[in-house]
Every structure is written in C-alpha cells, then in structure tokens.
C-alpha cells in the first residue's frame, strides 16, 4: 500500500489483546494475519477504480491518522444527550474503544449484547463461523484494515425464536482529532428471532478524524432484523463503512441508513439473499451541504428463488455538496421469481449541488420482476405554488417540501425518539439551506 496515511496506520498496529492469545482462538489470529497481508497487497482506491469513480478520497489518503493510544474517559454527561429512551441496552465506543462505564450490556434470556473482546472466550463457537466471514476483505482495503485492527467491537447474539422487543443502541463517539477508529459489529440472529439495532456515529469535536467501520449481520431461517444507521460524524471527518448482511431462508432485513455528517463518507451495504424467500427493505437518506461528499454503494444479491427486495434511496444536496448513489441489483440464474424494486430520488437545492446516481441491474434469471427508476431535480414548481396558494410564504413552502422529501425516509425509523430528533435535524438543515 502506497498511501502514507494507511502506512502510518499499519505501522502502529497494536498488539492483539491478551484474550486473543488463547490456543482455541487460532482462527482469529489467522483472520487478522490474512487481513494484514491483504492491506499490504491492496492500494487505496482512486477515481480510476470503477467502484470509486465519483468519489475522490485523495484528501483522506493525504492525511495521517493514528490509532487511539489513550482512550478518552468521558463523563456520562458528555454523551447522555445521544442516548435513546427506548433502548435500555446500549454499548458505547469512544474513539473506537469500548467504554464499559457508559454502556449497559445485556445477557439475559440467552441474548448477548456485549463487547466482543469480553464475550469472545465464552461465545467463540457462535462467533467463529461469522466474524470476518460476511464482510469480505480480499479486495476491499478498508474492510481489510478494519479486520487487521480487530481487537474489540460490538457483539449481538439472539437465540432461536427470541424477540428482543426494545432496540439495541450502539453509540460511536469521536472525541480525538487525527484519530483513526475501526468500529466492528457482529450480529448473529438465530432462526425465528427478531431484533432492532441502531448504529449511531456522533462527534464531540470538529477536527478531522477517520472512522472505518465494519458491520456483519447474519440472519438465520425466518429471523428478522431492523437496522437503523445514523452517520452524523463531525464536519471534517472521514467515514468509511462496510456492512455485509447474509439472509437465510424467509428471513427479513430492513434498514434505514441516514448520512448527515462527515466531509467525505462512503457506505457500502451488501445484502446477500443466500436462501429462498428472503426479503429486504433498504432505505437511505443523504442530507448534505457545503462541500460534503456522501456516497452510498449498495448491492442486493438475489442468489436464490422467491426473494423480495425494496429500496428507496434519497439525497438532498445543498451548497456545493456531492452525493453519489450506486445501487446494484444482482439476480443470479437460480433466483427465479425474484421481485425487486429500486428507486433513487434526488433533490438539488442549489446550482452547485451535484449528484451521481447509477442503478445497476444484472439479471441472469428469466422469470423475475425488477423495477427501477431514478430522478434528479429541484423542487416541483406546482407543489410550491399549491402551498403558496394556501397562504404559505415561498420560503415556508420550499422548506416544507424539502423537509418532506427527507422526512419520508426518517419516518421509516421505528424508534420514536430518534425519528423525532432526526426529523428536527432535517427541519433545521432544510430551513438553513433554503
């Protein structure tokens, strides 16, 4: 790898924690070693790479970040405002380091919500088949880097037929400038179980830092997961994330991913429907302004018959910001009777705002239903006039319509307090940019 940034990161690679040294955890050592090897072989992508054509991450490659040497000790008062009243179970990571004092793990009824390092020895048989097996890092330098640094993370295990009624909150807080963190999350939901997960990335400072997250979610037969992801990193931050989801037969995955923060962000979401009758609903919203860049790349891989996928991705782009959406739908030869729809809708608030949207359908089965569409535009003049004809000022009408455009996604978040807060954020942002 040529980039000074990643070299500096790897050069200071910390030793694996003592817990990893156990002779029964040889697989974990090998996983990390493989990842280190891949980081050495791969390079930081440039706009010459097809997958990064619209997203220039050279500003990231030019900077030097270092892993957190001394973990910040935060008082609860510093982060309480991010807590969700609906979520009694919460894991907090500060600059990527697990903060037990701020967390409320859970271990009842067979449900495990805990730090990965702490739970590793007790749950290794449940973890080994999944950790590093869904988020492939062979050709992905950032996933490889995350795996090379793997020492802790969030672990969520849901036993068979167990419904976890209340959402689980994973809160990632950035406090140190120039810090690199590699958040890791593994969710394994056994057959017939159900869980709602909120991943929330926030910052207490405005200087540059680097978040490089990997999340793996494995749903067994008939399991259901709702995954809310909120990226509200600081304005100078770099945020790269890979999420890999594997769906067994008749399982159902719903996700709402909201990108509000960071200078440059990239979210790769790969959903594999590995068995018959799996369903996924994937919604996204990027609400950005000024010089921000937000890129979402999704892949829905229909590998088996009778799969259903629904995707609505929206971008609200103000200032001179740049949004990218690449939505790939793969329908493999086996995946007959696939029912898939994808919609990309984009609202440009200024003349300098920019969006690149690319639906990408690769269909190798013949008996399928696949619909897709993309729109890019400004507010509809007829909608504005309709509201003005009811007495709303031009500015109020435009704000309301911009808000509504984003709110359609926010409303799909099943956690009321978070939905309300993000609705407020959308309201403030759309009022400010008009």
């Amino acid at each position, binding site marked *: 790898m040529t980039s000074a940034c990643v070299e500096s990161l790897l050069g200071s690679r910390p030793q694996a924690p003592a817990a990893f040294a156990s002779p029964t955890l040889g697989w974990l050592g090998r996983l990390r070693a493989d990842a280190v090897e891949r980081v050495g072989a791969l390079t930081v992508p440039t706009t010459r790479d097809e997958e990064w054509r619209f997203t220039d991450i050279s500003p990231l490659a030019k900077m030097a970040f270092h892993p957190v040497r001394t973990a910040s000790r935060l008082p609860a008062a510093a982060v309480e405002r991010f807590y969700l009243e609906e979520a009694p179970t919460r894991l907090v990571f500060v600059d990527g380091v697990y903060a037990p004092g701020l967390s409320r793990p859970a271990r009842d009824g067979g449900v495990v919500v805990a730090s990965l390092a702490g739970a590793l020895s007790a749950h290794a048989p449940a973890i080994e088949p999944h950790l590093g097996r869904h988020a492939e890092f062979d050709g992905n330098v950032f996933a490889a880097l995350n795996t090379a640094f793997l020492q802790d993370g969030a672990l969520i295990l849901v036993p068979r037929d167990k419904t976890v009624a209340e959402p689980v909150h994973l809160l990632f807080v950035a406090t140190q400038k120039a810090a690199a963190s590699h958040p890791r999350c593994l969710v394994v939901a056994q057959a017939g179980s159900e869980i709602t997960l909120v991943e929330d990335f926030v910052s207490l400072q405005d200087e540059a830092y680097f978040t490089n997250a990997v999340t793996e979610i494995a749903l067994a037969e008939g399991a259901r997961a709702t995954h809310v992801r909120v990226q509200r990193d600081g304005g100078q931050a770099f945020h790269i994330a890979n999420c890999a989801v594997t769906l067994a037969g008749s399982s159902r995955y719903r996700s709402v991913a909201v990108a509000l923060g960071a200078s440059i962000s990239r979210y790769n979401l790969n959903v594999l429907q590995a068995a018959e009758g799996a369903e996924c609903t994937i919604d996204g919203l990027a609400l950005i302004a000024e010089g921000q860049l937000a890129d979402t790349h999704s892949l829905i891989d229909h590998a088996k018959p009778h799969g259903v996928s629904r995707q609505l991705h929206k971008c609200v782009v103000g200032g001179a910001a740049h949004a990218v959406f690449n939505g790939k739908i793969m329908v493999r030869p086996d995946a007959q009777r696939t029912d898939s729809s994808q919609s990309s809708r984009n609202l440009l608030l200024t003349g300098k705002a920019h969006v690149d949207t690319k639906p990408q359908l690769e269909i190798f089965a013949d008996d399928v239903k696949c619909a897709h569409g993309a729109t890019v535009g400004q507010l*509809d*003049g*007829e*909608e504005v*006039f*309709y*509201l*003005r*004809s*009811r*007495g*709303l*000022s*031009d500015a*109020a*009408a435009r704000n*309301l*319509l911009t*808000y*509504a*455009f*984003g*709110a*359609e996604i926010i*409303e799909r978040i099943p956690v009321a307090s978070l939905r309300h807060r993000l609705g407020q954020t959308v309201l403030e942002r759309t009022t400010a940019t008009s």
Partner: protein
Amino acid sequence: MICQDSKTLLEVRGLRATVNGIEILKSIDLTVKSGEVHALMGPNGSGKSTFAKVLAGHPAYTVTGGTIRYEGASLLDLAPEARARAGLFLGFQYPIEIPGVANSQFLRLAYNTVQAQRGKDELDPLEFDDFVREKMKLLGMNPDFLDRSVNEGFSGGEKKRNEILQMALLEPRLAILDETDSGLDIDALRVVAEGVNRLATRDNAIVLVTHYQRMLNYIVPDYVHVMGAGRIIKTGGSELALELEARGYDWVGAELKAAAGAAA
C-alpha cells in the same frame, strides 16, 4: 344570489396573459359581487383554467395587459400567498400530492397562516384536530385522511373533498373552483356540491370553472359565462348552462362570428 346592494369583490378588465410567450387570455372582463355564484364554462383550451390560475397568481403565467381588482385594490402586485391571505381561494383541478407532509399538518399550517393574517387566534394541534374533524364530518370525509400524506394515494374524489375541506377551513371571500366536478362519481359530486352550497353566504362569492353542466344541477349559478379563445363570449343565467349541455359550444362561437359580421 344576486343582491342589489352587495359590494363588488372582483373586477377584471381587459385581462391578457401569456404562458411561455403564447397568449392564452385575450381580454377578459368579469365582475363578481358578494353573494353571487358564477359558472365559467367553455370547451377545452378556451382559457378557463388559465384564468383561474392567473387569478390565484401562478408564477408560470405573465399578465401582459388589463387589471384585476379585488375588494377595490389591485391583485396583480400580490404574491400568491398574499392573495390567499386576503381571502382568495383556488380549488385545484389536479390537487398536488405531497409525500412526507401529513395532511393534518398541512391543513393546520394553512389555517393558522390565514388566521394570523386576520388577527385571530391560531390553534394548537389538539384544538385543530377537534375543529377539523367537525368540518370533515360535514363533507363525509374519513378522519383517517388526516394522518396520511397530503393527497398521496387519495382517489380523485378524495382529493376534491380535501380541496373543499381546505375551502371550509380557510373561509375565503372569493373561491374559484377549477373543475371540482371532474373525476367525481355522482355520489361524490353530490356530497362535494352540498359542501360548497353550505359554504356559500351573502358575504362571499364562488366562481365554478367547469366543462359540464352536471355540477350546476346541484350548485345553481346566478351567471353562466362561456369562454372561447381567451375571451368571455357569452353571459347568461343558469338556463344557459342547460342550453350548452343540449347544444354544445360551437353555436356560441358561430353566433359571435355572425354578430361580428353583421356589425362590420
């Protein structure tokens, strides 16, 4: 109803308007007094809907000549929202769908904006909820429509009822209803028409823009105007609508041409 002593609400003189540089309205004269119901009829393309939108201030249309006076003052310098706050209401032919905005939120926002303008108290969500439900009952509307996004997924009839609900909330002095009858089945038409009749008073006026006579069975106009090629070419009483229904529009134009020929 026509009253001798009622005041003039709307006075249009020699109104000309263009859209994309094409002249659609070519000199319109119309006077509407309070208490009156006017029907504006005419074939497709005669300029009816354009006239309605120009009155409401649609920015796509440019007024190139003439005057519009509303309650004695010029409307032309007023933005659409100022016209609405002054008591002018346009019921849309195709009400706009707004996903993401709850109908209740939209209705309350519009209501409170106009209330504030009139120096009256605004209603909080709870107070408004009670108030709007009463109004909906009169229109036979299911309260579920409050929680849905504005007009989204509403049937044609539901959208038109929602327009009349807005009229009921805003209590305009001059309501222009653009093809409110289109897309309505006969039962919905009756309900909507009854709603409009209930809102008609001595102090306000209604202009019904319609292609067909059928709504005029329920809302009986004091005047019927026929538009052709951007002008009002004939004005009569409610019996004119029946004649148009029986004979179509062509004869009105022919009659005008013959009269023009005789004059020359």
